């Protein structure tokens, strides 16, 4: 892989990011021309108070001046202060990112691994009961909306059986530390992670299955068998790695949505991450918070797309040299 290839891709990603930053500015200007009036609706504000608030929110001056100021601040990761907590948006995001990365990251990895394995099993035993069973199960899980699946699991396992807590990340009454705290968090994470894993799983299975079925028609597998390789080796050395290529791209792109991916599920399980923060900011609307979140989400998608491009080229020599 050449340095030229990588720098071209990195440059492309940077251009996209700059576009998103600019777009973000105008998007929020379209949403609300005068946030001050909106936020303090029904409250008596004097002219001077109003001007002070506008100053504080960076809303004075022409749009051009605001835009330049916005670019400068964004470059320093200064997204302003949240309307609701009055804390810097960047600090809020940093504080909440961990919970989301833990939850959605685990679900993303689990769903990819399990989904791919199910897809391989289904394709290799196509038109058997195993294939039909796997396909039916994953299609079912895939077609269920996340929030609905989440509520079903919540109602059954948390409310009815009481095996798991109904929400949050730790037991508010517990003062456990160390391992006990980690176990408590894992206990809280189980249901939302299960929901997300089930929801993401199907996509991987379906794509892996069809990709492997396509690969299994390739002539080089006949050659591999003719050489005297046993079936398992034909599969593991020649069929699966090649069939994985499109799935790897999908995986990298899905990982880009790890930060933003769980708005509904975090809201249902009151998981204190970025998804829940988005949900709450939307209710405000807490515009600086939303603006910051949107930017972080976009940046993560762009970053993982870049990783997907580079990974794909690394895995597939045809992309690399053409």
């Amino acid at each position: 892989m050449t340095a030229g290839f990588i720098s071209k891709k990195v440059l492309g990603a940077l251009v996209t990011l700059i576009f998103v930053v600019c777009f973000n500015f105008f998007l929020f200007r379209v949403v609300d021309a005068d946030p001050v009036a909106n936020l303090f609706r029904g409250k008596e504000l004097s002219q001077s108070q109003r001007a002070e608030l506008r100053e504080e929110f960076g809303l004075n001056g022409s749009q051009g001046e605001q835009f330049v100021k916005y670019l400068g601040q964004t470059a320093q990761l200064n997204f302003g202060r949240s309307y609701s907590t009055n804390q810097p948006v960047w600090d809020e995001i940093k504080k909440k990112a961990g919970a989301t990365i833990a939850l959605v990251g685990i679900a993303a990895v689990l769903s990819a691994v399990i989904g791919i394995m199910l897809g391989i099993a289904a394709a290799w035993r196509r038109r058997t009961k195993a294939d039909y069973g796997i396909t039916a199960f994953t299609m079912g899980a895939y077609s269920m909306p996340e929030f609905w699946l989440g509520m079903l699991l919540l109602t059954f396992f948390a409310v009815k059986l009481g095996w798991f807590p109904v929400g949050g990340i730790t037991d508010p009454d517990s003062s456990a530390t160390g391992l006990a705290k980690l176990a408590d968090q894992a206990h809280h994470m189980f249901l939302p992670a299960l929901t997300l894993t089930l929801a993401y799983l199907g996509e991987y299975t379906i794509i892996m299955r069809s990709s492997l079925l396509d690969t299994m028609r390739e002539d080089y597998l006949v050659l591999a068998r003719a050489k005297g390789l046993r079936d398992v080796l034909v599969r593991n050395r020649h069929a699966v790695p090649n069939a994985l290529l499109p799935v790897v791209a999908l995986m990298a792109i899905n990982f880009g949505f790890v930060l933003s991916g769980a708005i509904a599920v975090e809201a249902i399980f009151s998981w204190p991450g970025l998804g829940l923060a988005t949900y709450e900011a939307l209710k405000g609307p807490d515009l600086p918070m939303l603006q910051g979140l949107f930017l972080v989400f976009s940046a993560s998608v762009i970053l993982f797309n870049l990783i997907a491009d580079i990974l794909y080229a690394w895995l597939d020599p045809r992309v690399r040299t053409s």
Partner: protein
Amino acid sequence: MSGQVPLLSVRDLHVTYAAAERPVPAVRGVDIELEVGETLGLAGESGCGKSSLAGALLRLLPGGTEVTGEVLLDGEDVLTMKPGRLRAVRWTDLAIVFQGALHTLNPVQRVGDQIGEAIRLHSKGTSHAKVRERVGELLELVGLPARRARDYPHQLSGGQRQRVLIGLALACEPRLLIADEPTTALDVMVQAQVLRLLEDLQERFGLATIFITHDLSTLASVCRRLAVMYAGRIVEQGPSHDVFAAPTHPYTRALAGAFPVIGDQAFRMAPAGLPGDPPDPRHLPEGCPFHPRCPAAVETCSSVPVELWPAGPGRAAACIHAPGSPVPA
């Protein structure tokens, strides 16, 4: 023992593909004998069953395909071998050179690794350096520089890929080589080079070869014996020069005539071709399956079944016009 038992003896081979409505008989009773070091050319149009035959010899056809008869390799039946024995026979006794289209080689593995895989598989414990050395030797044997081992298939031209496939087929020093349309995807100049290479290797290593193609003139120059297939059966066989120079079966005549003779004015004016398409193997015509397209067909052809009848020294043809035909034409 080679005096008694031929290297390869195919007896009454049938290949029937499973299909939704009606099974498709692709090969319908083929007999082939091949001695050590002998070359046999197998010709026919697309769909005549020649590639199915090749696939059946190594049991490479898709699951659900019914293969009956016998494929005796040194007297041992390939069709009834246990899986482990079959894997050992593959590539060490019988190797295939496939048509060198892009996807015959794994597109994401270096060609050297793909050759090395066969070596490592059949002589376990060969050291890394030894394998690399052998891969380099094989590539040089087929006229490629050893450093090409590091290339991926898409970095090679069609002719180079075909050479890699030939080198790969020779990796475990097989005694029987099946070349399944090895020159079809190549342009004429490269075809000639690859053919010369195959001929050369065949002589050097005393390889028995079954050479499959639709190009009769190629076979005549490369193989000692020739068999022509039509609708899943051999319709003519014999020494290749005799068959090519004076075909007995009208189908062979049409195949031989389908290739232009450079400088022949008569051919330019009236190129010989064969009207119509090969029959659908699910609905074969009664009698001789070739009779609807045959310029020499008579009334009996549509009712009397044909089989290989003697047609001169070492020759046989499945036509009622053949000299040895018991049916009056």
